[in-house]
C-alpha cells in the first residue's frame, strides 16, 4: 500500500490515496495530500479550497459521513462564492468532491457502490 511522508512520519494510504487512519489528519497532511500526484493532478490549495475542506471535515467529525452533494453545494453558494455550483466545485477539485475534496479532508474512503 502507498505511504505519504509528512514531517518525517510515514502515513498509510489506501489504493486510492485516502488516509487509512482519519485521526492522523491535520492541515499539513492536507497540503501533502493535495500535492501528491499519484492519485490525480496536484492542487494548489486556496482560501476557497480550505473553506470546503474544513466544512467537509467538520461535517464528518459531527455525523461520521461525508455531506451529501446537495448540502455541499448549498454551503458553497452561501460561504464560498455566490456563483458556486457543482461545476465550480469541480474546477476547484478537478476529480470531484468524493475523490479530491474528501481525500484531502482526510476522510475515510466514502463507501459507495458503482
Amino acid at each position, binding site marked *: 500500500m502507498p505511504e505519504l511522508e509528512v514531517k518525517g512520519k510515514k502515513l498509510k494510504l489506501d489504493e486510492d490515496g485516502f488516509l487509512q487512519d482519519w485521526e492522523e489528519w491535520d492541515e499539513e497532511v492536507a497540503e501533502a495530500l493535495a500535492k501528491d500526484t499519484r*492519485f490525480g*493532478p496536484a492542487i494548489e490549495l486556496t482560501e476557497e479550497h480550505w473553506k470546503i475542506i474544513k466544512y467537509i471535515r467538520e461535517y464528518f467529525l459531527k455525523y461520521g459521513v461525508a455531506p*451529501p*452533494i446537495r448540502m455541499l453545494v448549498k454551503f458553497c453558494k452561501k460561504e464560498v462564492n455566490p456563483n458556486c455550483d*457543482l461545476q465550480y466545485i469541480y474546477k476547484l477539485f478537478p476529480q470531484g468532491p*468524493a475523490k479530491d475534496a474528501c481525500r484531502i479532508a482526510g476522510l475515510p474512503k*466514502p463507501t459507495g457502490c458503482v
Partner: protein
Amino acid sequence: MPVVDGVELPETPLLDELEKGPWPSFVKEIKRAAIEQEKAMKAGKKIKLPGSAKGLLKVLELAYKEKRTHWKHGGIVSVIGYGGGVIGRYCDLEDKVPEVWHFHTIRVNMPAGWFYTTKALRALCDAWEKWGSGLTNFHGSTGDIILLGTRTEHLQPMANALAYLDKFYGSPAPFDIGGSGSDLRTPSCCMGPSLCEFACYDTLKACYEFTMRYQNELHRPMWPYKFKIKCAGCPNDCIASKARADFAIIGTWKDEIQIDQEAVREYAKVIDIEEHVVKKCPTKAISWDGKELKIDNKNCIRCMHCINVMPKALKPGKERGATILIGGKAPFVDGAIIGWVAVPFIPENELIEKCCEILEAIWEWWDEEGKFRERVGELIWRKGMDEFLKVIGQKADVRMVYAPRNNPFIFWRELNP
C-alpha cells in the same frame, strides 16, 4: 502449462469447464485476449498492461477454487472533470497477481440504438488494447460499452483517447464516458424508427437530446442515488424500460389500431386467427367473423399481441405519443419495482420538451427529499403518489394504477378526511 498458439496459459482446470458446450464462453474470450496480448508484445506494440488477461485467468481460477471473490469492495477513481463513469476495482492478491491488482472499469456512452461502424469499433478496441486489458463487454445492463481492467494512471490517457478517438484512432466520431454512481445513468433507447415499424416516436432523437441536455447530471453525481431514463418506441418495450428505468418513456397511440382487412384475410390462410389472436387478447376486445376483424379500441390495453402476430395487417394508430412510467428499478432498499404510469399520454411533437420539464421537477423534489440510496420510486412510496403528482403537475387518473385493473392507488386522505 497449456500452450496455445505458442503462448503459455496458466493452468485453469475449473475455468476450462466453462468452455465446454456450444454456447459462448467468457473464459474462451479471456484466453483469446491473453494470446492476443502476448502476440502484440512480441510484435513490439506498446501496450500498458501486458499479461493482464493471463492475470485475470489466474485470479478467476483461484476464486473458483476457493469459492470466494478476490475483488475488493469499493474503490474511488476518477478522471478530470468527471465524478462518474470510471469504477475502481482492486484485487486482494497484490503480491501474487500484480498484473490485475488495479482492474478499473470504464463505462463509455454508447450511441443511441447501439449503431456503430466497424471503424468506430476498431478504434475503440485499438485504444483499449493500448491503455487497458483489451477486454470489453458490449454492453452492460444500462447499455454502456464496458471497458474492463486498467490501472489508475492509465484512466486519464484512456479518457483522452476516447475524446480524440476520431483524430488519433480513425473513428468516425469521438466517444464520451458514461454514467455511474449517484448520477444520471447513460440514457438508452430501443432502435425505434430506424429498424422498427411499431415505433410511436423517435426514440433515438429523444435519447440523444436527453444525453446532450443533461451532461452535467450525467457526469457529476449529485443525487441520493442513480437515475435511469430509457426510451422504448412501443409497448413491446424491447429494452425492458418499465422494469429497469426510473423514468420510462414508452411509445403508444391514442386513437385506433390501423387495420388492413385484406391483409388480415391473407393471414387467415396461414394462421388460426380465432386461436392465435382473438383468444389471446387479454381484454377480449377483438372479434373475427372470418371476413372482418373488429377491435373494440376502448378496451384495448396496448398489449401489442395482435399487432405482433399480424404485423402486416395491424399497426399502431395515427395519433402517436408516449406514456411516462415512473419508479421502475431492480432491488435495493425496497426490492424490485415495476414502473407505473405517471403521465398517461404526451403527444409525439411535445414529448421531449415535456419530459425535460417533468424530469427537472422530479430531480428537484427527489434531491431535496430523498434519503441516501433511495430511488425515486421508493420516495414516492414513502411520500405518497398524491405528493408526487403535485410535483409533476398532474391530476390523478385511473390509468395511474400499480397493476392494471387490479390494484389502484388509493388516496387515503380523500377517503378519510
